[in-house]
């Protein structure tokens, strides 16, 4: 056990976790997930929001077992290694809205940082623009961090508080397996939610068991290795440390090789799957996402793994993302392959203003 802990905490440990994600994300695509979307925390949470009826974009509704597996895998690792520590209370309302705006930014770009890496590994050069925006947003976040930005301390809470989010995931798994129909038409006929897309990306998915097992492994490994795409870039800027960066380099290299092997690599800017080529809003969407992740202390994947450890603040951020996905589609803010939504650019500007106000106003003196 001690040797496992030591290995997973080492540089080779985090590289191994990155390689695992990089190998299995393209395989999930090969087995049925949408193109360049073997894993995408933002897109998959958006699909869950759709399945629950929080938005009615009929092509992106499915309860993605990957999200469930990430949280439960991290919970298992946290319990096994005695790191399950229920905690919360660090500016929850701010974290909720950081999650909400992070999701809006990610859906203007069309992907979370993990999907940006997977898009890059699949030859979608728009991802370079998105990753540049992500890095720029994180750089702004680092400036706030250096100048004293802080969301306040969390405090220990009761065990049940830390279990609420994992229990929600188990409920989602039951919804996925049994697909109950909660709605009623005026005539009284059962209808969704739960909604499952009949066409489009939401209808494309790998077998549930396969997705769930892979995601449990990712959740387990990522909890142990602290894999975080935002942290990877932040640590290079903030403390010149490349530990986390080696994990995401592992993702890109492994996914690139797997895409070549599976015939999924297609280089170019145009006609990329579930992507658009508007550079300005690809960039600014990810500036917003990167800044929100930096202010909240983790990428969307990391927030799920922390939720599995009992971190209620991370769970609130993740909930904010799911609610944000509902707004993003209901309010025409999410992009489509045709380009940014009608209110996408305006919502990114509102989100950036929110984050900048948070960055300037939230601070605490530590002595």
């Amino acid at each position: 056990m001690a040797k496992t802990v030591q290995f997973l905490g080492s540089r080779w440990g985090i590289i191994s976790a990155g390689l695992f994600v990089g190998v299995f994300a393209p395989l999930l695509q090969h087995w049925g997930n949408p193109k360049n979307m073997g894993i995408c925390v933002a897109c998959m949470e958006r699909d869950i929001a759709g399945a629950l009826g929080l938005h009615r974009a009929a092509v992106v509704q499915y309860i993605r077992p990957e999200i469930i597996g990430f949280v439960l895998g991290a919970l298992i690792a946290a319990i096994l290694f005695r790191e399950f520590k229920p905690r919360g209370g660090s500016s929850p309302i701010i974290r909720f809205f950081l999650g909400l705006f992070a999701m809006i930014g990610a859906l203007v770009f069309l992907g979370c940082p993990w999907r940006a890496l997977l898009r890059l590994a699949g030859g979608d050069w728009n991802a370079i623009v998105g990753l540049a925006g992500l890095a720029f947003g994180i750089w702004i976040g680092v400036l706030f961090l250096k100048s004293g930005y802080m969301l306040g301390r969390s405090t220990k809470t009761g065990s049940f508080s830390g279990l609420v989010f994992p229990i929600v995931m188990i409920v989602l798994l039951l919804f996925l397996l049994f697909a109950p129909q909660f709605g009623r038409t005026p005539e009284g006929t059962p209808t969704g939610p739960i909604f499952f897309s009949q066409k489009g990306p939401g209808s494309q998915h790998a077998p549930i068991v396969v997705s769930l097992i892979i995601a449990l492994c990712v959740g387990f490994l990522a909890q142990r290795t602290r894999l975080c795409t935002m942290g990877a870039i932040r640590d290079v800027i903030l403390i010149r440390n490349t530990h986390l960066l080696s994990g995401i380099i592992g993702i890109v290299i492994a996914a690139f090789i797997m895409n070549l092997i599976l015939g999924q690599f297609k280089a170019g800017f145009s006609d990329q799957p579930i992507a658009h080529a508007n550079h300005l809003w690809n960039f600014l969407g990810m500036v917003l996402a990167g800044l929100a992740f930096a202010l909240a202390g983790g990428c969307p994947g990391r927030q799920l793994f922390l939720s599995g450890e009992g971190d209620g603040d991370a769970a609130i951020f993740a909930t904010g993302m799911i609610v944000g996905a509902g707004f993003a589609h209901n309010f025409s803010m999410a992009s489509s392959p045709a380009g940014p939504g009608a209110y996408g650019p305006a919502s990114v500007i509102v989100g950036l203003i929110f984050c900048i106000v948070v960055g300037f106003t939230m601070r605490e003196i530590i002595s």
Partner: protein
Amino acid sequence: MRRRDMSEKIDARGLSCPQPVIVADRKMKELGRGVFEVLVDTETAKENITRLAQQSGWKIETKQEGGDIRLLLEKT
């Protein structure tokens, strides 16, 4: 490792990533050399500060105290 200046203590419990690293980094730069303690409550904070210390040439000792971890940093 001798504890020469017990007045230099930082309570980083309850701070989310990367705040514990930032406060430790700030103290390292402020002191240049010497001894200080950081109290944290997550393994992640311990690992991050340990990596920072090793990278910056500070020796580090860790001590589990119930649910908290005391990190003693020293540079001569």
